[in-house]
């Protein structure tokens, strides 16, 4: 255990930033940014997670194994997302769906921003 006592103020600042960022995420959700809806939400979320890991979880003040563990975890996540995407981006999407599909739900990934209809919600 490396005893690294941080000033209370720092925790408070981080906490407030997290709350503010949450508010921003909520706010942005009301504005339609097209394909950037998800991007913006994810960027903010990653930023928040980073703050938590660095300060609340003290990664900033740790060395050695702890960092190895974090880097390994991120690497694994990259493998998961990376190879999954290699499927999604090379899949054979058909323009016309099978009878059980609604035409609007074919290839959500291929649709251009302007053409992309909001996917239908189940009642």
């Amino acid at each position, binding site marked *: 255990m490396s005893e690294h006592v941080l000033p209370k103020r720092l925790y408070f600042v981080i906490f407030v930033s997290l709350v503010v960022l949450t508010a921003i995420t909520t706010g942005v959700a009301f504005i339609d940014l097209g394909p950037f809806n998800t991007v913006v939400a994810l960027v903010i979320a990653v930023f928040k997670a980073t703050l938590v890991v660095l300060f609340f979880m003290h990664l900033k003040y740790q060395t050695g194994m702890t960092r190895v563990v974090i880097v390994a975890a991120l690497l694994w996540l990259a493998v998961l997302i990376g190879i999954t995407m290699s*499927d999604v981006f090379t899949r054979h999407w058909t323009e016309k769906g099978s009878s059980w599909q609604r035409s609007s739900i074919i290839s959500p990934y291929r649709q251009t921003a302007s053409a992309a209809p909001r996917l239908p919600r189940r009642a």
Partner: protein
Amino acid sequence: MSTVAVEVTPTLPEVHYLNADYGWRSWLFTTDHKRIAWLYLFAITGFFAVGGLMATLMRLNLVEPQGALMEPASYNKLFTAHGLIMIFFFLAPSIPTVLGNFLIPIMIGARDVAFPKLNLLSWYIFMLAGSVFMLAVIRGGVDTGWTLYTPLSTTYANGHVLSAAVGIFISGFSSILTGLNFMVTIHKMRAPGMTWFRLPLFIWSLYATSVIFVLAMPVIAITLALIALERVFHVGIFDPALGGDPILFQHLFWFFGHPEVYILILPSMGVISELVAAGCRKRVFGYSFVAFSSVAIAAISFMVWGLHMFLTGQSVYAGFVFSALSFAVAIPSAIKVFNWTATMHKASVSYDAPMLYAIGFIGLFTIGGLTGLFLASLGTDVHLHDTYFVVAHFHYVMVGGAIMGYLGGLHLWWPKMTGKLYPEAWARFACLLVFAGFNLTFGPQFILGYLGMPRRYAVYPPEFQVLNVMSSAGASILAVGYFIPLVYFTWSAFKGPVAGPNPWGAKGLEWTIPSPPPTNNFDVTPIVTQEAYAYGHEEAHVG
């Protein structure tokens, strides 16, 4: 096989971990890793019995093409419960929580694991998970297959998918805690002089397994949570009508699922290394290759998951990549097989029960692994996917491989765990029954699959009956083979002859302390000056 010159009748130590304390409290609230191993042993033996009973019912049903026993709907629930129980509640915990818990601290010269209370907590979480899951099964069960594919498990679910998923979700936490505990223990608790390259290979393989536990289990937990999110709150994740992608479920499931199969086999490989060394009285050939192949398997196993998805909607280009990577994961497995065989070369091999299990493992695992390569070839898989060939493949690795290793390990360390010997002749007989029964059960399934019989059906065309009857007959022999050890182990625990500290004349720290060990394992912390396989000078050079 004993080569001890002077025969002295061994006696049990006066005080040991089994009699240090009495009463149910001393077991249910114990933090002794050796007692926790027993708690797990009882629990998973129960799950094995339930899962095995389900398998027996399935094989009985398949004796007749029309299904001899039950409706297809019940059959679906049966194979789903069988798969989930065997994988999550028997095989995954088997070697790590029983043999691993018992042996890891002793093998590295420690008094307990790093977090003894957490160790006990893992068991309680495991029992909670098992109860929640069994409740779902009793209340009506799940019919999706153990893979829980969407949309069967979401849009079209008609069973107790959610409550079963909660059970599996909880069991993941038990595994994560066990994995963490083992990793920290192996890093921090090694006795002075116990360097990484003096560790028994069993420890290396359990270390690799723990890494997979910690990295893979959260993914299945998250995936099941996403199912719940979609079903309860209609968030579009897997359902295309809500903007989701059903194949995403398969990606997430197999990103966990393929490493999971290595959670099942890696510990067994570690046991085999110990069995082969003890049975040949020799250092395992190419120690560091065997050690690093465990780590390599753990790493590569996370990059091949798409081999399960060649025909289920994944892009063919991703299929190429996964196929190539799958061939890579077979390399470290093959290294192990070659090195065990090389160890046996020119050794004076004993044919005691543990070694028989090891030899059985090597043969059956090789068949299982090689047929995996057939399946991993894109073209062949078109023909073989979702047939009995796949069923035979994975039973060769999981039953012929993993369970043989578990039983072999139990036979090697039983005298350490109880201080008692079991009847060797019965043990050899049971091992031969298991081997014969196993091959008769699953050998015909390769042919059935090749001929085109699909898996997961309660009925089949009449021309497949002969092979199916053979398979069912084999299953009954296998069941007897599993039952006999239960009988003689129980007998041995109460009435067996005293074993003494080292009945096999084997090397390794666990054989230097009394059987059964004292609660503290070592009265004084051992100072390690040699590797775990210091079997005499001349043999040491062979490796």
